[in-house]
């Protein structure tokens, strides 16, 4: 296991370096001019040159990239002050350090992702299990239909409707907002409830369908038939044999989904005016804020890579046939 983790971690570092290089160099291929954003109304080439110098954009791109990467490991000095490692630089837009900004936004994204994950896992997988257990019955058909409906819905559509109905119309739900759990757990819960429900609705449908299909497939496997033939109870067969076989692909997908969500649920954050990492990513692209974009990209990529490794490691626990070679 240790060798596996070391090997995968080294691979992850290589992947992240590649992602950083691609993002950095692609940025300069864009028809963007970050200096223009800080150039005021009556901009001229002399002003642009001054701003490019201030931002360090007058240096060759490979040099800029090298300085950026060194800063992550060793920190850097800027006109605004020293930036401790891990230093992703200062935002071009507001001269705020990137790392504390991401740290500030991450709890919102973490709350959104984990809360929604609890809901969509519990409800989605639960519904899928019931549908598989009662396959062919009206319950199965009802749940399958609901899953199809859920899959066809989008956050920006359901979210806006929910806001109009439950917040502005009936006034039975609180205006979505993030309040730190450490300050007021009740407000944290009530402020995040609607985003959790809406975000989970979309995932729930996927997990319900996936769980059902995996379980139905497993219930037709030889080892399940053998267990039945040995006289084991239906419940034991379902949970100990079929469920155990079905869980591996669900965990795989869940790991990737959670990694992606931790990188930012952009549409959900925009719909509910939450200030998470996803929104930060979109804003940094819109405002051509290279340091912020790099920081968010690397953190998001790291989340996905880490969760992929964790999922791969969990495989060995879930499925004894898998060996971490």
């Amino acid at each position, binding site marked *: 296991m240790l060798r596996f983790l070391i090997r995968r971690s080294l691979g992850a570092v290589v992947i992240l370096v590649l992602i950083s290089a691609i993002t950095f160099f692609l940025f300069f291929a*864009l*028809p*963007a*001019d970050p200096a*223009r*954003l*800080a*150039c*005021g*109304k*009556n*901009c*001229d*080439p*002399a*002003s*642009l040159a*001054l*701003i490019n*110098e*201030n931002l360090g954009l007058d240096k060759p791109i490979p040099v800029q990239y090298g300085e950026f990467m060194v800063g992550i490991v060793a920190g850097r000095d800027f*006109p*605004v*002050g020293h930036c401790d490692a891990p230093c992703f630089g200062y*935002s071009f*837009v*507001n*001269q*705020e350090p990137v790392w504390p*900004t991401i740290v*500030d*936004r991450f709890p919102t994204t973490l709350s959104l992702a984990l809360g929604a994950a609890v809901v969509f896992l519990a409800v989605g997988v639960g519904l899928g299990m019931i549908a598989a257990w009662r396959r062919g019955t009206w319950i199965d058909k009802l749940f399958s239909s609901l899953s199809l409906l859920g899959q066809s819905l989008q956050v920006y559509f359901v979210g*806006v409707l929910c*806001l*109009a109905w439950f*917040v*502005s*119309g009936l*006034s039975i739900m609180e*205006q979505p907002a993030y309040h730190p759990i450490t300050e007021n757990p009740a407000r944290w819960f009530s402020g995040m409830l609607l985003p959790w429900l809406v975000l989970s609705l979309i995932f729930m449908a996927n997990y319900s369908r996936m769980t059902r299909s995996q379980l139905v497939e497993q219930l037709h496997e030889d080892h399940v038939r053998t267990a039945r033939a040995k006289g084991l109870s239906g419940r034991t067969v379902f949970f100990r044999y079929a469920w155990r076989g079905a869980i591996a692909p669900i965990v795989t997908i869940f790991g990737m989904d959670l990694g992606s969500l931790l990188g930012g649920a952009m549409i959900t954050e*925009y719909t509910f*005016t939450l*200030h998470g990492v996803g*929104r*930060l990513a979109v*804003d940094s*692209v*819109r*405002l*051509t804020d290279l340091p912020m974009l790099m920081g968010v990209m690397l953190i998001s990529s790291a989340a996905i890579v880490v969760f992929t490794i964790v999922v791969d490691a969990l495989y060995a626990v879930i499925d004894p046939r898998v060996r971490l070679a």
Partner: protein
Amino acid sequence: MTVNRTSKVRTCAIALAAGALVLTACSEGGGSGSDRSTEPTMEAHGITLGSAADSTGPAKEVPGAKKGGTVRVLQRDAYEYLDPGQIYVTDELIMQTVYNRTLTNYQVDDKTGKTKLVGDLATDIGRSSDGGRTWTYTLKDGLKFEDGTPITSRDVRHSIERLYAKYQTNGPLYLQQWLSGEGQTFRKALPDGPYGGDHLPASVLDTPDDKTIVFHFDQPRAEVPFAVAMPNIGAVPPGKDKKEGYNKAPVASGPYKVADFKPGKGITFVRNEHWDPKTDPIRHQYVDRFEVSFGHQWMDSTRRLLADQGADKRAMTWNNAVDPAQISTVLKDKEAMARSLTRTQPYVDVVSINTSRVKNKKVREALAWAFPNGQYLQQYGGPKAGEIAGSLVGPTLKGHNRDFDPFQKRKYPGGNIKKAKELLKEAGKEGYRIVYAYGNDKPAQDASVVVVRALEAAGFTVEKKELDRGTYYTQIGKVNNTYDLYRSSWSADWPSGSTVVPPVYSGKNVHDSSPNYSHLNSPTINKEIERIERIEDLDKAAPEWVKLAERVLTEEIPQVPVFYNRLFTLWGSGIGGVKFHEPYGAVDPTAVFVR
């Protein structure tokens, strides 16, 4: 000046007027007849110059106003700059009025909405001598920063000298350039600002005592009272100025101070106990706190303010407009309309014709006749979002002629296709290929459909180029761009065409990132700009600028005026004292109270 905030170019515009600098404006509002009759509140009032008595505090009490409470402010775009030296966009211009005081400033009458320029930190709007080359300001008694230290002329000098430092790149440049040289050459007069202990010579900027500031210019500068109303000409304590770091923690001189600023998320203002209302003829300190949060798209702020529930009863926005998709819903809601305003803003939306590529004047004329102003405006929200424009200068500028509409846009809101066809035929350019560039935001995408339809009906062949919204102005701002037609927006910084015509239509400004998006370089226009710039009497210069703008349009056709902007906005039922700040085109927060 572009309307898109990311381009950093929406600022104030005002109307210059009669008398000492009067101003008026005469829009009855509305782009169509029916609209005009139903929007009496849209009239632009213009701006007058206040006396020393007008500059004396306290501001008149607002009837029914109470102290206390928290007001939520829902804003779409995050504030990037709190440093008054770097502020230049509408959102930040209106925001800084609560904590930043300048030598002069705009006083909006609570009842009439009329605006006066008055002394703010200074006892009056300035006293000129030496034929307008010298301007003297005296600070009021009792001025203090948020930490209780008195504001002196040294702090005002520092606020100006720090603008010479290289990190100060975003704010207005007028005063620095008038004092020390055009373009970026002014910085040579004080490299790196005052941080090394150097100062501008007393022959340029003098502070003979704690109360007096004297500006010496090398030529008459009649517009100084307006230039020192810009947010960067105030007071900054040298001991608290941490250069770039000041952006996060500016020291307040106004009734509120920054309690908590989270870039990208929000900002909270609380009472500044050291602000003395007796020194301030403009601002009140009714509410305890303003809690400003960012990221509220117009759809979101409109929904919340329309619903008017819970804490949102005490919510407002300073410049989010009503979402175009919800305008009809709001219009039907009498209760909501009672807590709304619709006012003409200083911005004029235009479509620039790239004269480097479209050299044939008849072709440009055909474009102007064919452009479907009314249908285009509809995509941006219709009459509540703007009024069909006939001129390149808006209704808030003195001398604006409502009847000036050389391409008959009010008569033909869909464009005069027949006339355009004839012109194209006369030019022998039927089927002329036009590259129309637009941003990938929804209104621009929708508008592109009606533009293409009209131009093609007139005989043009149109190629659409959809550009990324984030880099739109960078792309159209390149002199060698490959587009023929693209939208932009502009407004004056103060009530003078001198902040409109030269930047947008002077041949000196044909360079990358310039507001001269049409690349107009006409010797006759350039010569006329130079002539008007030499007129020392603002009262005489103002109508000359408007006339020149009209000449630019009829003789050169570098742009097609499309619509004069309007702000249609709502606030919660628990809020009073809301008024419109005409110079900034936003809601004025200085008299807001919780009912």
